């Protein structure tokens, strides 16, 4: 299979910080707001370079989203940054009213998403944010997989005219994607296979590649597709791969309800039904622990993906 090399472990939130700085350098209309999490969101480079375009909002996320909508009405391209839970669930109504129905060009920068936030525990480990953001008309949902893709997705989000939900994480993970412009709405085929398709998003993409390597050793040729844009979904690519391999695994660091798994299942059910296995969180909250411990315990790692692939192939 195609080889992907880890260029060195980096956190995707730093990829966001790098992309935000690049976007700010390229376009003087880019502005950034945070709710007392500048450091956690790696927004220092932007804030230091463009202090007049950076707004510290304090721990007041509702006003932050509303003020961003106003800045967008005034022609600016605002990025609002906080932890995933506090820029989705806490401000769902503000995003629905001011950003999506209000048609404002606001970018929601959502860090520390998923269970890999780790030791802070379930209060901060949102596993429901994709469901919330997917449900909103006008919202684009992007969940990049590594530092490089997050940087490029951030730059692409700034150029896109409309609301974007950009989801990334806390831990340092493999950085393996080529440094190329990000295409919103495109599914990236990372490895071509014939026996089973693994659709993965976010941190699960690297896990999927590791699983594919393990499967290859057992003579199974897995196709790995990075669903970096969850909405709009690249349905053409999803259907084509599912038809080709006839068996599907969907891997995401998100709960079942409203996640990528349900989304792909819905697309395939109405076009070309195929057996599916899900690697995701179930109907439960997480707990404190290291990212690796949590991913293993809650069934979201390379081992679980490989196991799901073998299981789903039996149902072909």
């Amino acid at each position: 299979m195609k080889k992907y090399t880890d260029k060195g472990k980096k956190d995707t939130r730093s990829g966001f910080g790098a992309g935000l700085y690049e976007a700010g350098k390229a376009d003087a209309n880019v502005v950034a707001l945070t709710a007392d999490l500048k450091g956690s969101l790696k927004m220092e480079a932007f804030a230091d370079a463009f202090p007049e375009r950076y707004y510290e909002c304090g721990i007041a996320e509702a006003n932050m989203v509303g003020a961003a909508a106003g800045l967008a009405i005034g022609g600016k391209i605002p990025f609002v940054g906080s932890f995933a839970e506090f820029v989705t669930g806490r401000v769902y109504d503000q995003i629905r009213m001011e950003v999506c129905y209000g048609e404002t060009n606001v970018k929601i920068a959502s860090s520390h998403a998923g269970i890999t936030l780790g030791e802070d525990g379930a209060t901060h480990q949102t596993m429901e944010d994709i469901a919330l953001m997917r449900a909103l008309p006008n919202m684009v949902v992007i969940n990049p997989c590594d530092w490089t893709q997050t940087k490029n997705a951030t730059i692409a989000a700034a150029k896109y005219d409309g609301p974007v939900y950009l989801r990334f994480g806390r831990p340092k993970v493999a950085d393996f994607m080529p440094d190329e412009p990000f295409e919103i709405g495109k599914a990236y085929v990372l490895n071509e296979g014939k026996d089973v398709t693994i659709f993965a998003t976010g941190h699960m993409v690297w896990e999927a590649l590791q699983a594919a390597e393990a499967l290859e050793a057992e003579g199974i040729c897995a196709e790995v597709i990075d669903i970096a844009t969850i909405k709009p979904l690249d349905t053409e690519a999803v259907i084509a791969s599912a038809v080709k391999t006839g068996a599907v695994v969907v891997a995401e660091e998100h709960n079942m309800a409203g996640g990528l798994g349900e989304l792909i299942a819905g697309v395939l059910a109405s076009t070309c039904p195929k057996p599916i296995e899900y690697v995701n969180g179930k109907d439960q909250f997480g707990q404190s622990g290291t990212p690796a411990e949590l991913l293993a315990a809650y069934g979201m790692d390379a081992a679980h993906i490989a196991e799901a692939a073998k299981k789903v192939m039996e149902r072909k």
Partner: protein
Amino acid sequence: MQSAADLKKTASQVRRDIIRMVTKAKSGHPGGSMSCTDFLTALYFNVMEHDPATWTRDSKGQDAFILSAGHLTPVYYSLLSRSGYFPVAEMATFRKFGTRLQGHPSVEKGLPGIVQTSGSLGQGLSAAIGIALAKKLDNDNHTVYTMLGDGESEEGQIWEGAMFAAHHQVDNLIAMTDRNHQQIDGTTEGVAGLGDLKAKWEAFGWDVIEADGHDMDIVLDAFAKAKAKEGQGKPIMIIFNTEMGHGVDFMAGTHKWHGNAPSEEQCATAMAQLEETLGDF
């Protein structure tokens, strides 16, 4: 720019529009629309620098207004159409299927003059702050106005915005509170006492002016005082003391007309109390 005498006449027509729209739609919010009619008429026909002919949503080169208390569309749509943003006749479509005059202000429907969607309470101040910040970045020396209901001020986001605007010295922002002391479930003091609203805003770092919201001379004076305070490092709040349902005897001073439509008969009674000055739609 209308004089105080002309503004009174315009306000009478606006009240007629409010009641006739709500009666035709058999739904809507007349009471609160009528408490803020006088000072918002002054805003649109005297105070605000705006030009419907060249208006764009970003309000560049003009003053901007956001109706935070989004349910008060009857007064808002009357002011916008009477100012020339869209045909007066379109008021007949208020709340009807397919209309641009949605129950609450909608950007999606493209009604000219609507800067931002509103209706979920407590959000307009934040949006107004954002537009004011954009104007500062663009060196656009115009004012952003927003109006809050007093009941709406129970929302926490209002006070998040209050702190932010003071901290960031958003001094090209003039907010207004329609202090009519009524909300859906009763009086503001009975539902969730607001206490000394003026002291609260002052404690949050705002310049606060309190004025009668129905006497046109006093209203214009309050706006002049507010304008004079711009650019001095503080956001500005005008608390207009008003009466819910003002202008029609059976609707005045009660929360009962917050979200209820008059019957045809009640509408006729109300029309007899309000002079038709600009021609009904």
